């Protein structure tokens, strides 16, 4: 029991830190005079006081976190913070149920971008900013943020960092101290976000839209301030800027950091995972554009290329912006986009899915099997670039993939039982688990998740969380072994 109390002690501290993120919507509220000042103040106060209470009440149990505590803390935090983040939404929109509000904040923090809100264009500015801010914070990770600004977690910090950061290999650290690493990652993230903001403003957005979209682009989230998403702007320049920054965000931020530190582009060429991601994305864009042109969905190749590129990059990088209703395209195209969303993001980026590096490991592993059959005496280590991947990582990737597919299958069946059609059920689950946002069918880009029942909404919420925490981190606390001493 005292172990859980230690975790709650740290959790309280994290809530205190998190409560400061209300400052940004508060300022927005003051600027736009949208009448949300009071609600946000209450939400901030409630979060701050709850955190303080938890922290103070368990002060006696303050101690070093073990590996298990780390997992527990990450899961508790990723369930508690979305709950507190619903406060401003619930206070402002009384007709919104907790289920829907929790879905919305979870969708934000896990950078999915699926929404249940309708009438975004008329939503108070501060609320809109709040949604986008959640995506931005969730993109790099709450724990990473906490580790970055408070070195108080000590040795446990590295464990937490590992439990939250996506990707199979997490031991490579950029700097000797984990705090330093986390701080650098956040600074790079912040820097690129500012660039994105300025670029979007120059491309023709208002300052408010530019800030919101910079947040959701860099987090690969997918929230927009308009119901029509990016189709509202109907501007190729804005689409181009967003494509570029989505491609930047889909690469491991450690690579960006190294490139900045070495002041050249060599780290990008060394990053075989990022290279493969980008090449695969660009190749698929061209292929889909040709396909749409051939299918005569668009009668002009350049129009086809414009829509194919933006929507494909958006879905495949697990953002989920839409510049057209791509669900109307021949079914091959949107399904390929969803499939790419499963695999294309780099580890250490803000994207979702199984990550490119795992895909590459599995691909190479299949090749190894063939080699083994043809040359029984062969010694063929798993190699990515020049680095050898140890066998234990290959096994953990295999286990991860199994869990990943089982999660999708089980959730899809549950959705089907609840009465949805197959396309909606399957695409909603895939879009949730990969943190894409919009799916197809009833949850397609032209509509949203507001039509789902409470049960279905909870399934999607669970899917997003399980996808963001890369399944193992979440499922491990449900195993009996975890609780055994």
């Amino acid at each position, binding site marked *: 029991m005292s172990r859980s109390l230690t975790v709650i002690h740290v959790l309280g501290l994290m809530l205190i830190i998190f409560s400061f993120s209300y400052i940004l919507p508060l300022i927005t509220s003051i600027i736009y005079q949208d009448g949300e000042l009071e609600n946000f103040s209450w939400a901030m106060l409630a979060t701050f006081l709850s955190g303080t209470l938890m922290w103070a009440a368990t002060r006696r149990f303050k101690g070093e976190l073990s590996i298990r505590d780390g997992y527990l803390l990450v899961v508790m935090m990723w369930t508690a913070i979305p709950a507190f983040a619903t406060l401003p939404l619930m206070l402002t929109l009384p007709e919104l149920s907790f289920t829907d509000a929790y879905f919305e904040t979870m969708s934000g923090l896990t950078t999915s971008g699926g929404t249940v809100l309708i009438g975004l264009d008329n939503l108070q500015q501060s609320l809109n900013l709040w949604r986008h801010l959640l995506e931005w914070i969730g993109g790099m990770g709450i724990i990473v943020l906490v580790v970055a600004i408070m070195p108080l977690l000590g040795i446990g910090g590295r464990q937490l960092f590992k439990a939250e950061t996506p990707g199979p290999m997490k031991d490579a650290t950029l700097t000797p101290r984990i705090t330093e690493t986390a701080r650098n990652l956040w600074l790079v993230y912040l820097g690129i976000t500012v660039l994105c903001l300025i670029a979007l403003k120059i491309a023709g957005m208002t300052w408010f839209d530019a800030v919101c979209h910079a947040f959701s682009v860099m987090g690969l989230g997918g929230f927009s301030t308009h119901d029509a998403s990016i189709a509202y702007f109907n501007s190729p320049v804005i689409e181009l800027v967003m494509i570029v920054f989505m491609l930047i965000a889909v690469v491991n931020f450690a690579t960006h950091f190294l490139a900045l530190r070495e002041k050249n582009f060599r780290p990008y060429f060394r990053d075989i995972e990022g290279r493969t991601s980008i090449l695969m994305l660009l190749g698929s864009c061209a292929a889909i554009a040709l396909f749409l042109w051939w299918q005569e969905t668009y009668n002009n190749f350049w129009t086809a290329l414009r829509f194919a590129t933006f929507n494909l990059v958006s879905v495949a990088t697990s953002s989920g912006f839409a510049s057209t209703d791509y669900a109307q395209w021949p079914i091959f195209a949107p399904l390929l986009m969803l499939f790419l969303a499963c695999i294309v993001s780099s580890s250490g980026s803000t994207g979702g899915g199984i990550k490119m590096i795992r895909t590459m490991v599995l691909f190479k592993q299949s090749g190894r099997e063939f*080699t083994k059959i043809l040359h*029984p*005496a*062969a*010694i*063929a*280590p798993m190699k990515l670039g020049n680095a*050898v991947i140890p066998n234990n990582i290959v096994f953990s990737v295999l286990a991860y993939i199994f869990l990943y597919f089982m999660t999708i299958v089980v959730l899809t069946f549950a959705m089907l039982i609840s009465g949805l059609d197959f396309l909606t059920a399957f695409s909603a689950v895939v879009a949730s688990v990969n943190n894409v946002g919009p799916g197809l069918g009833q949850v397609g880009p032209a509509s949203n998740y507001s039509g789902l029942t409470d049960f279905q909404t909870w399934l999607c919420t669970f899917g997003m969380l399980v996808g963001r925490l890369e399944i193992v981190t979440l499922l491990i606390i449900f195993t009996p072994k975890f609780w055994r001493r």
Partner: protein
Amino acid sequence: MNIIILGAGQVGSTVAESLVGEANDITVVDLDSAKLKLLQDRLDLRTLVGSASHPSILEQAGIADADMLLAVTQSDEVNMVACKLAASLYNTPTKIARIRSADFLAHPEIFTAENFCVDFSICPEQILTDYIGKLIDFPEALQVLEFAGGRVSMVAVRAFEGGALVGQPLSFLNTHMPNIEVRVAAIFRQDRSIMPHGDTVVVAGDEMFFVAATENIRTILKELRRMDRPAKRVMIMGGGNIGRRLALALEQQYQVKLVEYNKKTCERLAAELTHTLVLNGDCTDEKLLQSEHVGDVDVFCALTNDDENNIMSSLLAKSGGARKVIALINRSAYVDLLQGGKIDIALSPAHVTIGTLLAHVRRGDVAAVHSLRRGTAEALELVAHGDRQSSKVVGRRIDEIDLPQDAIIAAIVRNGEVIMGHHERMIESEDHVILFVLNKQIIRKVEKLFQIGIGFF
């Protein structure tokens, strides 16, 4: 010359053997007294037990009077330190170190006089790897040697029954390939040398040494033999230093399979090599060779450090259908026994690598030395200096030079241009002259010819 050799390993002892044969005073230093005893029993030299990088040991070895220090121990670091000590404490004129690590070689500035004072660095494994690499590039050749920075090549080829040249006089070469300048520097028939003339008729089984500009070699080989298809599949036995380097050098161009006995080594190799298929197994395991299709292999290289294993696996490969087999054999007795039999090329590492060292030991301005036919003959690249007064070669026609019998001027390289060594050619100062010496006894004489007389100063 007074020479100190540090390290009595394979390189150290073969170098010592060659140098003793050329009338030098040799002192060998090593930690292992048993190795030294073995050397001293065989050769006329002095030995000293001790650590090669300690000044006191170097002093005892007589470094104060030494003309040259050859640091060829196993350790790059010891070799470098020894050179540094020799330079700073004793001012030894020439210091040569064996450096194997590519990491050191990537920074040539650490060998300069301000730093480690290494005048020349050699890497026997790399020399051997390059040598084998060339044999694979030209699968018909028995030996491929380069001169003048790679501009001129000398290729040894065996004339086979049914080949274009057999039964023809050598002058046929010029009529057959009028556009290409090529010269036959020597012919060995049943292990005895024949002075080649225009009317010499080639007999099947002759070993011929061609000299030509490097870019023409491929065309010449194509004309002379029904050019086999170029090599594509290479199998290497043994993942030691040489096997590893060879696989690294070849894997981009060829399909390389490498067989190594030690599993740990295999894993290390597989991590380092990208396209090579690394196999774990015994190189004399005929089942393994068969299942890996040794019959389709173009070049089979047995490069383990065990002579017997290399011989047996090469024989297995040859009988299994491999096109060309190369075996690395350290014992010279075995080499003589096997060359020209079932094994196409029996390589003696010592003979391949010694030339580089000899170039520094020889008198006169020697640019390259290659040992031929297991050390009985030699190909030399000498630089002519001076003028008609001070030099015995400069300013003279080739047929005016007082060359001993059994020595042939094969080619001249002047300002990067290759000139064949015909009688009427003149030799100028700074020419690189490529000589073929069929008898080792006369090498001294040839070198003396190229030394400039007192009158030059």
